[in-house]
């Protein structure tokens, strides 16, 4: 989230699209109701179903799964055509006026530079025209046809209301009503908040779904302001934290990136990470990258990371591919390229697409280590559970270790919520029987392996032997010590240019501004610096003070970065530094400095006249309609059909799907067609359940005991399916037999002139736990991910449904 949960109450319009907050985030959703009560806000839901959020909304517009880019590109077209944009904001705070290189083009569904062999683009020309100083050329008059604003206008021109309606299945009147409502927030003192979740991410075009909405928000001047923003509601309790700390194939903590094969030296690595400003006077804050990286290496390797060895640069593994994501990991597994796998609190047999492939992959492992508080399906993948998990254990060579872990209530530590708050929690009881914390287990594995390397030697033991491990109890480092590591400290006296000591050696740092690239500071995650200072554990703070009652609570816990609660908050004020919305200012220029209720996302004394842009992490200082080379599938979003779709792409039939998506050949062979599987399936969650955990909790197992699908009345009548009867739901990849809930909440949509039915598939059942046993929705879903992130396409695929006599062998 750019903003906070409570800040939602400041919105004038709440658009829930790509999520279902009332169902999946009920206690956060209360702030939407607050917005309605306190701020006369309107709530609009755009979703395939009339879902629980729609049930309390002012307006619901249906949309076919996987067509959000078409819908939102149409919104951009509408805003530009009716001139309902926040002009001053767009001119000053976005890249609308910058001029794009001649080589950039788009035609018939493809951007320039496409290589059909590799399914990738040469992105060289997705860049600005530069002047002789290396700055982007600009045309404030917007006359140049290659200005970003003009290229964008041209790009979205195809998304007419008629086209949007034919693609999305949204009736034109409903679509135009939503456009009008969104446009009403172009006034400087009006804000729309965008609330979204997996409904946008779990598509082969997921990242661009979100980008399209971010572009709408920039046009309306809704980023950085109270009640605005792009607000990803997010899933697990620390999914934000695990992202921040970089537990992803291609990431280091704090959004630094792993080095590649070609980056053989630290200098090579830094060459592409200079972040030289693309406009005069810009902060381009990533220019400090080197300080963050060197400080991190000092946390990792301590004294073994030196200037002489380039801060132990060779100790980091190098990537020969963009990433080793999970879809790739299972592809490698089924081909026998992975021998061992560790699942720490992760249940891929339920959570990853094409369940039969996941089981095939796990069955080829030599060893599988599962660390979990609960008895997961993954740990028992080898068990024969009949149709729910067909298997022949005698033929599976995998050694499986099931290690019992502590749960949330049994350990101290911090979690990052979706508003980037690091909140500390305390241990309430001991773990059951022999269960141990993840920290203890990971330490134990590490120490045993390190000991083996000490005794036996072996392949490149240096990073293992030199891993910094200065904990009071090396077998069980305390969460407080690790939190201090995340924050960082000085390793030597830090002196100012006059030679005076400004920070003593060994002192916890207050901010990432103190980090150095000479090895005199360390920090495990630079964006967290400030969370655990000499003043103590800032994440444990519990002061509920909320200046002007505007949803900031600056002294409750601690927010990254720098305890800032609203990102890009410089953009809450106009060019001169006066708030766009005087009733809800966040920061403003008082003649000497930026003051307000939040920590400025800006240099605190930078004068408005200096022209420093509010998007300080971007090299040009502005928000980007044109994404340069940052996305693999285009600098502008484009509508591509899901890999399984009931219709051809109406915009460019020859380029049906995301051309930059990576699809493995055997996965492609497992895609079905609408001839065999005529209905659109989409997966989702229920308020009574959390993924595959709560089926182990008695009350939740009672509340939603049984696997079911939701099917509209029209389709049910066509198929002769009665409410609460058994059905067989199938895709090219598998089938499930479960109960049908026949509902008024899903209605057929007219897509390209023909009625299209959507079937809803809640995800929560499996073969362990207290609820009735079930298959799990991933028996159906295709193994293809978003082109940028490889997040699987769970939200749009093809299925067929037939009446059934019930579970095999039980009728």
């Amino acid at each position, binding site marked *: 989230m750019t903003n906070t949960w409570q800040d939602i109450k400041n919105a004038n319009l709440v658009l829930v699209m790509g999520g279902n907050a009332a169902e999946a985030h009920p*206690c956060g959703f209360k702030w939407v109701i607050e917005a309605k009560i306190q701020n006369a806000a309107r709530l609009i839901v755009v979703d395939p179903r009339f879902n629980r959020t729609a049930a309390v909304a002012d307006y619901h517009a249906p949309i076919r799964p996987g067509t959000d880019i078409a819908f939102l590109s149409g919104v951009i077209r509408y805003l530009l055509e009716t001139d309902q944009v926040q002009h001053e904001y767009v001119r000053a705070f976005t890249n609308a006026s910058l001029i794009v290189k001649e080589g950039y083009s788009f035609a018939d569904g493809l951007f320039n530079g496409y290589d059909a062999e590799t399914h990738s683009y040469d992105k060289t020309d997705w860049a600005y025209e530069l002047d002789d100083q290396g700055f982007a050329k600009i045309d404030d008059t917007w006359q140049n046809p290659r200005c970003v604003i003009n290229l964008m206008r041209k790009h979205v021109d195809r998304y007419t209301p008629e086209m949007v309606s034919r693609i999305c299945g949204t009736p034109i009147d409903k679509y135009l009503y939503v456009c009008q409502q969104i446009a009403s927030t172009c006034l400087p003192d009006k804000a729309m908040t965008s609330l979204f979740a*997996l409904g946008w991410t779990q598509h082969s075009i997921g990242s661009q779904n979100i980008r399209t909405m971010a572009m709408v928000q920039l046009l309306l001047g809704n980023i950085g302001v109270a009640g605005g923003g792009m607000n990803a509601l*997010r*899933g*697990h*309790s*620390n*999914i934000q934290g*695990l992202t921040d*700390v970089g537990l992803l*194939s291609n990431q280091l903590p704090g959004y630094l990136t792993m080095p590649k*094969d070609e980056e*053989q030296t630290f200098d090579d690595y830094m060459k592409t990470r200079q972040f030289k400003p693309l406009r005069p006077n810009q902060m381009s804050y990533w220019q400090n990258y080197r300080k963050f990286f060197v400080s991190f290496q000092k946390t990792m390797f301590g004294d073994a990371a030196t200037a002489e060895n380039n801060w132990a640069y060779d100790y980091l593994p*190098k990537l*020969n591919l963009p990433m*080793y994501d*999970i879809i790739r*990991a299972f592809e*490698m597994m089924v081909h026998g390229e992975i021998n061992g796998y560790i699942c*720490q*609190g992760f249940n891929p047999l339920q*959570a990853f697409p094409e369940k039969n492939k996941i089981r095939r992959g796990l069955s080829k492992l030599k060893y599988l280590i599962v660390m979990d508080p*609960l008895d997961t399906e993954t740990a*028992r993948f080898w068990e024969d559970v009949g149709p729910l998990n067909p298997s022949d*254990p*005698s*033929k599976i060579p995998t*050694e499986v270790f*099931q*290690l019992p872990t502590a*749960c*949330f*209530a049994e350990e101290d*530590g911090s979690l990052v919520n*979706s508003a980037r708050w690091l*909140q500390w929690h*305390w241990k*309430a*009881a001991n773990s059951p*029987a*022999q269960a141990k914390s*993840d*920290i203890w287990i990971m330490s134990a*594995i590490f120490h045993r*392996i390190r000991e*083996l390397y000490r005794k036996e030697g072996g392949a*490149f033991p240096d990073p293992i032997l030199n891993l910094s491990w200065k904990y009071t109890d090396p077998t069980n*480092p305390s969460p407080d010590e690790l939190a201090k590591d995340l924050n960082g400290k000085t390793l030597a006296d830090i002196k100012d240019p006059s030679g005076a000591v400004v920070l003593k050696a060994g002192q916890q740092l207050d901010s990432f501004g103190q980090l150095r690239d000479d090895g005199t500071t360390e920090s*495990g995650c630079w964006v967290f610096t400030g969370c655990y200072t000499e003043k103590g554990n800032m994440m444990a703070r519990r002061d*509920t003070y909320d200046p002007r009652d505007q949803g900031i609570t600056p002294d409750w816990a601690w927010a990254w970065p720098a305890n800032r609660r609203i990102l890009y908050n410089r953009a809450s004020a106009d060019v001169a530094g006066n708030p766009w919305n005087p009733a809800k200012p966040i920061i403003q220029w008082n003649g000497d400095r930026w003051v307000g209720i939040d920590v400025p996302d800006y240099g605190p004394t930078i004068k408005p006249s200096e022209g420093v842009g509010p998007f300080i992490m971007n090299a040009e200082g502005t928000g980007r309609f044109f994404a340069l080379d940052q996305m693999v599938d285009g600098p502008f979003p484009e509508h591509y059909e899901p890999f399984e779709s009931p219709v051809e792409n109406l915009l460019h039939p020859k380029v049906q799907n995301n051309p930059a998506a990576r699809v493995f050949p055997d996965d492609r062979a497992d895609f079905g067609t609408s001839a065999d599987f005529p209905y659109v399936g989409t997966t989702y969650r229920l*308020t009574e359940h*959390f993924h595959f955990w*709560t089926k*182990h*909790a*008695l*009350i*939740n197992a009672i509340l939603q005991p049984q696997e079911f699908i939701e099917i509209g009345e029209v389709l049910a009548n066509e198929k002769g399916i009665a409410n609460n009867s058994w059905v067989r739901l199938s895709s090219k990849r598998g089938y499930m037999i479960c109960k049908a809930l026949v509902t008024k909440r899903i209605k057929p949509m007219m897509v390209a002139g023909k009625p299209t039915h959507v079937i809803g598939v809640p995800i929560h059942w499996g073969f*362990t736990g207290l609820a009735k046993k079930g298959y799990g929705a991933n028996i159906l879903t295709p193994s293809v991910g978003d082109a940028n992130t490889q997040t*699987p396409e769970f939200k749009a695929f093809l299925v067929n449904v037939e009446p059934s006599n019930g579970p095999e062998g039980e009728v």
Partner: protein
Amino acid sequence: MTLTRRGFIKLSGATLASSSMSAMGFGGCGAALAESVRPYKLAAAKETRNTCTYCSVACGILIYTSGDGAKNAHSNIMHIEGDPDHPVNRGTLCPKGSALLDVVHSPGRLQVPKYRAPGSNEFKEVTWDFALDRIARLMKDDRDANFIAKNEKGQTVNRWLTTGMLAASATSNETALLTWKVARSFGMLVFDNQARV
């Protein structure tokens, strides 16, 4: 006299002294009645602040535990409710958070390390030492056999691709840092968490 709900429980349950009963307006007869009432367990419980383990709204919760935290005292979580001070959830919880106690005490909670041998159709209880020694052996042997120090171009790459890891996005940042350190020190690249989903 203003009493919060928790204050009421403390006042009424702590000692059941007649003075506190009269403070609440029960008078003499109330004291006799009060003596027949079981003491409130929550009043003697340890209250611990925590965060709901499910979604990223991160509702504040209060966990009530019996046992005073002494080494020999058996601690048992007996009640979990929303933290009324928390600025986001203000004491409320959803159908998942309200039932947290049932996941803490689920019969599906794992108690002991278990091991499944190749070809076997059952898990067997093992000691931590057996499990960890065996894991270390398997991992080291796999790493030594498959570690790639240089690629085909002779570039230094120092990676280990034949063992992968999925990290847990319900663990703490502190666990996350420690996990990152360990996994990357081995040279792992097949390394992700639920954020990929």
